[in-house]
C-alpha cells in the first residue's frame, strides 16, 4: 500500500510542474523516436539489399578467371583468360551437386534496330542462366543448347533494352543488329530492377556464349562461370571440389596461387549486407546518442528538482517519510517521465519513418521487437539517470533540508 501511495505522491509532484515534465519527456520522445525511425530505415535498407541478393539466384557459386602478369604488368581479375569452355564442361560433368552451369562472356556493344540505336551490355551465357538467376521470360522463348552449339544469332533482351530500341513494338521475332551483326530476338525478360551496385539489370542483351565469343566479344575464354548447386549445404563442398578440379586442370602445383577465384553468393551477400549493417548500426548509434542526451536531460531536471524541493523533502521526512520513500518517489517520477516519453517516442518514430519512406521512398521496417526494446530502454534510462538524483534526495538530512532556503 505504501508503494501505491508513493506512486500517487510522484504523480502529484509531476502534475504540479506540467510544462517542465512535458519538456523533460520531450528529450526522451525525440530520442526514442529517432531510434525507432533510424533503426526502421536501417533495417529497411538491409532488407532491400537482401532482396537484391536473393535476385542473384539461390545457391550460386561464381568462378572468375584470375589476373595475369605479362612483362611486369598485372591485369585485373578476369584479365588472364584462364577459364576455358572445357573447364565449365568438366564442372558440369564431375561435380555431382551442380544442377546448372552458365559460361559467361560479358561485353558491351552498340546495338540498333530500325532507326533506333543504343549502347548496352551483352552477356554471353548458357540456357541455364535463366534458371540460375531465377529470371523468367515475359514473352517469347529463351535460346537453346542447340543455339549454343551452333552459335546461332539469337538473343533475349531486357525490358529497358526493349523499350529503348523497339519502343512500343513487340520485339519478339524482330531483328536486332549487334555490332552490325543481325540477331533474332527470341524473347524478352521480366523486369528485375536495379542491382546492388545500382546498375539497371534490365539494360541487357543475353545471347549464347558461343555467339558472343564469335560475333561480339571475340576470344575463346570465359570471364566467369556461374554454377548453381541443389542445396545451400552443397555450397562449401562444391566450392572445394571446383577449386581442386580447376587447379588440377590448370596444372597448378601445390603452394602456387590459384589463377581463378571462387566466391559463393553467400559471401557476396555478406559483403553487400555488411555495408547495410554498418549503415543500420551507425544510424542506431546516432539515434542512441540522442536518447542518452534525453536521459541526461532527465537527470538534469531531477537534480534541479531535488535542489528546488529540498524543503519539501525535509517536510516529507519530518512527517515520517523514510529515505526509501523519497528515493522511490523520485525514481517513479523519473521513470514515469522516461516511459511516457518512450511511448510517445515510439508513436513519433513510426510516424516519422512512414513519412520519410513516403517522401524519400526509403523502405522502412519497424519490428515489434525494436518497439519493445525501445520502450524497455527508455524505462531503463529513467532508472539509470533518475537514480543518482533520487539517492541524493533520500540521503538529505531532514534538519538541514527543513532549514534550506
Amino acid at each position: 500500500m505504501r508503494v501505491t501511495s508513493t506512486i500517487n505522491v510522484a504523480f502529484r509532484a509531476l502534475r504540479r510542474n506540467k510544462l517542465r515534465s512535458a519538456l523533460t519527456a520531450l528529450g526522451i520522445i525525440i530520442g526514442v523516436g529517432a531510434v525507432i525511425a533510424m533503426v526502421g530505415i536501417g533495417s529497411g535498407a538491409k532488407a532491400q539489399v537482401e532482396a537484391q541478393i536473393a535476385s542473384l539466384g539461390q545457391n550460386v557459386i561464381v568462378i572468375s578467371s584470375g589476373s595475369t602478369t605479362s612483362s611486369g604488368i598485372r591485369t585485373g581479375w578476369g584479365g588472364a583468360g584462364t577459364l576455358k569452355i572445357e573447364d565449365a564442361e568438366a564442372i558440369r560433368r564431375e561435380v555431382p551437386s551442380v544442377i546448372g552451369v552458365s559460361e559467361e562472356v560479358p561485353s558491351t556493344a552498340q546495338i540498333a534496330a530500325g532507326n533506333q540505336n543504343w549502347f548496352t551490355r551483352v552477356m554471353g551465357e548458357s540456357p541455364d542462366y535463366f534458371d540460375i538467376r531465377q529470371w523468367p521470360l515475359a514473352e517469347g522463348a529463351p535460346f537453346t543448347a542447340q543455339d549454343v552449339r551452333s552459335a546461332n544469332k539469337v538473343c533475349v533482351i531486357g525490358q529497358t533494352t526493349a523499350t529503348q530500341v523497339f519502343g512500343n513494338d513487340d520485339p519478339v521475332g524482330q531483328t536486332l543488329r549487334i555490332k552490325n551483326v543481325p540477331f533474332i530476338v527470341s524473347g524478352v525478360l521480366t523486369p528485375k530492377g536495379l542491382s546492388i551496385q545500382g546498375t539497371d539489370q534490365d539494360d541487357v542483351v543475353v545471347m549464347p556464349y558461343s555467339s558472343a565469343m564469335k560475333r561480339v566479344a571475340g576470344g575463346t575464354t570465359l570471364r566467369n562461370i556461374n554454377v548453381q548447386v541443389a542445396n545451400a549445404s552443397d555450397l562449401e563442398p562444391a566450392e572445394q571440389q571446383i577449386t581442386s578440379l580447376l587447379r588440377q586442370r590448370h596444372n597448378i602445383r601445390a603452394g602456387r596461387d590459384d589463377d581463378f577465384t571462387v566466391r559463393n553468393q553467400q559471401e557476396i551477400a555478406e559483403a553487400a549486407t555488411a555495408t547495410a549493417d554498418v549503415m543500420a548500426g551507425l544510424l542506431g548509434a546516432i539515434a542512441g546518442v540522442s536518447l542518452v542526451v534525453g536521459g541526461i536531460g532527465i537527470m538534469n531536471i531531477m537534480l534541479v528538482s531535488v535542489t528546488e524541493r529540498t524543503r519539501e523533502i525535509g517536510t516529507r521526512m519530518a512527517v515520517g517519510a523514510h529515505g526509501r520513500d523519497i528515493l522511490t518517489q523520485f525514481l517513479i517520477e523519473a521513470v514515469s517521465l522516461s516511459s511516457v516519453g518512450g511511448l510517445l517516442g515510439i508513436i513519433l518514430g513510426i510516424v516519422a519513418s512512414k513519412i520519410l519512406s513516403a517522401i524519400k521512398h526509403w523502405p522502412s521496417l519497424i519490428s515489434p521487437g525494436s518497439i519493445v526494446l525501445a520502450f524497455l530502454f527508455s524505462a531503463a534510462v529513467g532508472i539509470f539517470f533518475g537514480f543518482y538524483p533520487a539517492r541524493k534526495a533520500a540521503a538529505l538530512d531532514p534538519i538541514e533540508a527543513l532549514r534550506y532556503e
Partner: protein
Amino acid sequence: MNNGTVVKLIDVHKTYLTGEVEVQAVRGVSLEIQRGEFVALMGASGSGKSTLMNLLGCLDRPTRGQYLLDNTDVSHLNRDQLADIRNGKLGFVFQSFNLLPRTSARENVELPLLYARHALSNHQLRERADRILASVGLQGREEHHPSQLSGGQQQRVAIARALINDPEVLLADEPTGNLDSRTSIEIMGIFQQLNERGITIVMVTHESDIAAYARRNVVLRDGLVLNDFAVAERRNAADELGRRSDGVMD
C-alpha cells in the same frame, strides 16, 4: 489533566563537530513534560533551544543521555525508526509553514497519512483531512493552494497537518515568527483551544509575550536550563481577540 509523563529527557547532551571544533549545543538537560501541558521553550539564539527542539522532534539523536517519548526510549533508534516515531507520535508546525506549493490544503493535510503504516483509502483520507481543516476554521478552503491563502491560513493548514495523525505531542518551532501580531494571537488562540482539548504542545519562541500564552516556560542559556516556571499571568487569546474586535466595533 496530568495523567502521565509524555516527554522525559535525562541528562541529554548534543555535541556537533563543525570541522575541528566541537560545539556543545546542549550540555545536560533534564526535563519532564506531562500529558496536556503547554510548554514554551525560550532562549536567545545560540541557547540550544533549536537543537533541543530537533531532539524532542526525533529529527536528531542525543550524543549522550536518554529521551523517553511516551515511555519508549528513542535515544538510539535509526533513521527509519525515528521517521516512524515522527509519523505516529509527533506533529510539526514550522515558522515558515513548509506547505507543499501548488498543492491543495487538503492534500497538504493528508501528507503524513501517506507515510503512515496503516494506509487509508482516498475517501477516508479526504474525510479526515476535511474534518481537521474544519476544526481549525478552514471549512470551504480545502481546494485552495497555499498561494491563495493568507499567512495565518497557511499556518492553520500546517496545524491541521500536524494534528491529522493524533500526535502525542505537537511541536511548534517559532509558529508566529512569520505572522503579524493579530494573526499571531489567532494562532495562539488555536493552540490554547487545542491544549484545552488535552493536546500536549511544546513551542519554541524567543518572544516572551508569545510564551505568555503557554502554561509553563522553560528558559535555556548556553545549552542548559536556566529557568523553568509556570506562567503566572497567562494571556488568553480568545479574550484578547474579543476585546480587539470590541475595540473595532467602538
